[in-house]
């Protein structure tokens, strides 16, 4: 089974540093719980926040979430198990589970970026 993590704070226009802290702490607990249950994990984030297009606080939060994904993938790498970040474009609802189903097997520790908005930009 795949656990899908979404962080409501990402869409809070008033998000600040303390909000980033709180959201990362929640995500950390969710990832720990999922790892303890040996579940695959997908962390869903807005692609626009990978490069800070919606402000520094949201970018810090998404950067932190991607960091969790990479660190956990690094530590927990083993055949068949996976944790990834799925970055969705503006036109896709973050709650859309069909997008999650499109993350390919065999990937772990990756940022899977859907859509075309970041073509030509720094690879996040």
């Amino acid at each position, binding site marked *: 089974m795949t656990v899908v993590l979404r962080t409501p704070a990402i869409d809070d226009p008033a998000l600040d540093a303390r909000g980033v802290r709180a959201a990362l702490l929640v995500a950390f607990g969710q990832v720990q719980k999922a790892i303890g249950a040996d579940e695959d994990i997908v962390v869903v984030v807005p692609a626009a926040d990978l490069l800070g297009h919606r402000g520094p606080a949201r*970018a810090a939060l998404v950067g932190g979430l991607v960091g969790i994904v990479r660190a956990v993938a690094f530590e927990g790498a083993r055949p068949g198990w996976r944790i990834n970040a799925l970055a969705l474009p503006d036109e896709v609802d973050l709650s859309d589970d069909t997008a999650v189903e499109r993350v390919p097997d065999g990937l772990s520790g990756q940022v899977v970026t859907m859509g075309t908005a970041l073509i030509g930009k720094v690879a996040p």
Partner: protein
Amino acid sequence: MSTRTALVTGGARGLGLAIARVLAERGHALLLVDRDDAVVAAAEELATDGHRARAVVADLTHDTGLASVVAAAADAGGIDVLVNNAGITRDARLLKMTPEDFAAVIDVNLVAPMRLAEALAEHLREGASVVNMSSRAALGNFGQTNYVASKSGLVGFTRGLALAWAPRVRVNAVAPGLIDSPMSRAMPEDVLVGLVNKIPAARIGEADDVARAVAFLASDDSSYLTGQVLTVCGGRSVAP
């Protein structure tokens, strides 16, 4: 001689002090910030060498510490260079890492730089440069979920702030790899040798390697750079 003022956090020792010294040698007046009062002696040492350095003992995870740094910046007449260098580690495997260990690292390495930058916004002079100290570990590291999250978060913050503050202020990050430090010297020799063998530059980094990269981003030599991450790791981040 430049009259630019640089504020360096975590300036009592190690990388922060090395950055401060290089900036001082390039003509900056310094505000050295650290929660350890050893920062006072560090500033005195720089002053003995003929540099302009003032120490601020402050814990940036607390409102009072933040306020005292902002007051010092105002007293200095403004800041030209802000180096968010202060950082900590509390390593543990994921399932053994406590929420307290996770939060402590996020507080110092990510939340404090975010709050300091925002608090200093009105004190940053036109053309100022912010340099956030990330890490090559932001790309992933063993037993450091908290540290990796904090340093990757700082990269995100760097990009977002660069866009938000352009063109008045530039914001970049430096991501050091393995650097000679008390922490690296404490590693078992075979572990350290193994790590160095993975570095294309075939040596461990020195604090001055990082300090010079920070000085470049702080200077007008990098005036067309913003929102970027300069990885100072001897090529480790691209090696197999």
